[in-house]
């Protein structure tokens, strides 16, 4: 069995599962297990791929492509996919039995699984195609499928969020398409139209692209994929979509989809880097990244909606990641890749716990939740751990990646920018910690449902949090991951022949 077979498994099973779930032939109990088994087999396939593929070379066929960078992203997406499948059952059952949005009809659970599987399928497609045009097609497809997930509750606010999401993201992503077209035009004028938009071919001939055209293409790509990533000021869809989607989907949007969008952006940056030059890319990225972090601060501090607060915290982390890409040193890129891993896992945990808190207290308003420690000890433990993690406190993994990104600011000589970012991060810390601690402590004023997470949930959540600690703190000890991330950085900085 070679990598190609694994790709076929990855691309066929989730699609098949989606069709089965949509057909309504199976009872809800069976669909839960079909979903779990599918995710487990796909995870096993990815682990097998990790065993046969060590990340030291690039695996390439006519349409598929795999190198250390995409392997790293595949690991992130797969961890989230696996966790979502295993903790999804109890979450959806609670949503069904209580007065949640699934209580109207049990068929909705099947529809939810079908859409989730299709969504994951699209994200896998983004990561393994070789062609920049096809990457664009897959990214656009993720927007459209996740729009149906965002609007899944079909109440007024969910519809509003989904409408804004589709409109803003589709227009934004159309700009990215113009950028891709300009890149293709640059390719045809410089090196001929053979291997159109083939990433490997462009990577090898990146230096011969016309600088003016490449610069124009980069501007369009930056705006386009920047919208999809959620950079300010194109972020207006982000808090709405994250807060209105079902909590599992919010975790996927924040963890997995954002990772995919940044991945495609990275692939494009690498192509235009030699002809555009580092300075332009750094200035543009840093400006927008700092703006993004700055936008997040006031909204976190005054926020009342628990999931919107998490969405703005995502915005802050997105800003840091784009800043890391903009600095484009070995250290900053390594830190960014690590940050994507940590942020995806921790944010997934946080959104899941936020969903649980909403189920327990039947409100999204943080101001009406007090004394969680006394009422729901399990949930509050994870809530506190997640908040500590996302703020970048040790020992959770985000501490290391955040620290490295900040370090690379000063090492690259952007002292002022680094200082500004630190001040802004302190603002986010104060806001998030204030809200979290206020929810945890004090006297309970509102009855809560029982402490909801069951044993599978807590196991998965603990595993995710621990994974960030272990991978970040012990990166140099885990030979496989370390090799993968080093090779990925080499690919990005152009030091690795494919």
């Amino acid at each position, binding site marked *: 069995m070679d990598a190609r077979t694994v790709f076929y498994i990855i691309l066929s099973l989730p699609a098949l599962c989606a069709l089965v779930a949509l057909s309504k032939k199976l009872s809800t109990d069976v669909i839960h297990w079909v979903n779990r088994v599918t995710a487990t087999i796909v995870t096993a396939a990815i682990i097998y791929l990790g065993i046969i593929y060590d990340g030291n070379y690039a695996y390439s066929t006519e*349409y598929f492509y795999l190198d250390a960078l995409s392997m790293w992203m595949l690991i992130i997406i797969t961890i989230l996919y696996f966790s979502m499948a295993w903790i999804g059952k109890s979450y959806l059952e609670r949503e069904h039995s209580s007065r949640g949005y699934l209580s109207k009809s049990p068929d909705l659970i099947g529809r939810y699984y079908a859409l989730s599987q299709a969504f994951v399928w699209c994200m896998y497609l983004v990561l393994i195609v070789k062609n920049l*045009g096809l990457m664009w*097609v897959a990214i656009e497809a993720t927007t459209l*499928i996740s729009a149906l997930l965002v609007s899944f509750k079909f109440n007024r606010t969910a519809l509003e969020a989904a409408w804004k999401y589709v*409109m803003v993201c*589709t227009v934004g992503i159309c700009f990215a398409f113009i950028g891709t077209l300009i890149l293709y035009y640059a390719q045809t004028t410089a090196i001929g139209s053979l291997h*159109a*938009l083939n990433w490997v071919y462009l990577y090898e001939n990146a230096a011969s692209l016309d600088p003016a055209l490449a610069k124009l293409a980069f501007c369009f790509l930056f705006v386009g994929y920047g919208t999809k990533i959620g950079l300010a000021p194109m972020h207006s869809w982000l808090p709405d979509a994250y807060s209105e989607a079902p909590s599992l989907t919010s975790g996927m949007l924040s963890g997995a989809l954002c990772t995919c969008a940044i991945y495609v952006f990275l692939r494009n940056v690498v192509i235009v880097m030699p002809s555009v030059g580092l300075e332009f890319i750094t200035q543009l990225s840093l400006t927008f990244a700092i703006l993004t972090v700055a936008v997040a601060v006031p909204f976190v501090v*005054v926020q009342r909606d628990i999931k919107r607060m998490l969405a703005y915290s995502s915005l802050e982390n997105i800003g840091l990641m784009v800043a890391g890409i903009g600095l484009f040193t070995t250290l900053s890129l390594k830190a960014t890749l690590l940050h994507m891993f940590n942020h995806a896992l921790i944010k997934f945990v946080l959104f899941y716990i936020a969903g649980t808190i909403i189920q327990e207290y039947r409100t999204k308003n943080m101001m009406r939740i007090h004394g969680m420690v006394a009422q729901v000890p399990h949930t509050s433990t994870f809530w506190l751990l997640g908040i500590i993690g996302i703020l970048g406190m040790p020992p959770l993994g985000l501490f290391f990646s955040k620290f490295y990104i900040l370090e690379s600011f000063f090492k690259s000589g952007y002292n002022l920018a680094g200082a500004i970012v630190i001040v802004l991060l302190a603002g986010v810390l104060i806001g998030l910690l204030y809200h979290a601690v206020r929810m945890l402590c004090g006297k309970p004023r509102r009855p809560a449902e029982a402490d909801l997470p069951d044993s599978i949930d807590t196991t998965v959540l603990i595993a995710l949090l621990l994974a960030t600690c272990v991978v970040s703190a012990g990166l140099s000890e885990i030979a496989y991951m370390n090799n993968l991330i080093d090779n990925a950085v080499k690919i990005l900085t152009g030091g690795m022949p494919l």
Partner: protein
Amino acid sequence: MEYLVILLLLIVFVQTRIMDLKRSIYCLSLQALVIAIACLVVGFEHAEGFEAIIPSLMTLTIKVVCIPYIMLRLVGQITDETEIKSNINVNYSTAASALFLLLSYMIIDKVLPATAARDILAASIFVILTGLNLIVMRRRAIMQMVGLITMENGIYLLGLMMTEGLPLVIELGVFLDVLIAVVVLVILTSHLRLSFKTTDTNVLRKLKG
């Protein structure tokens, strides 16, 4: 080709003035027809046989027939058909379009001086800008969809002229995406109608901060 450009400009100008949902969709279909013909012309210049007509055939089936059909079915369910009188007058959007036409010629002369396909490239940028303008200025959900597809048409035309057509797989994917986008938007719009009793997107202003 010059006649096609003039025809396209005319259709898009008319598009900015139409307030009736059905007529606006017919106009959209007509717009796609012009692009399908342009596709055919370009196709025969650069390729031979079946490959030359595939893109134009796809434009014809998806953009001229399928998408307008889906949208017309949706419009059939909606009772209050005309665009709600915008506070911004229609004349403004037409005037803006005229400005966009000048602007797009200026952009083309600056970015790609002395290109052979100057007129049609300028026309495609004009179509993109007008589509954006429609999305921003119109309030009805369906009119915003029309704007989105107009913009997408313009980008497609731009790609066609700049690069002599994309590889077939990518083109297929792009068409599929457009089709899914319309289906998703139609689903959302019909739910808008059920929840809000209107398809005016100005009611969507609850989420803030």
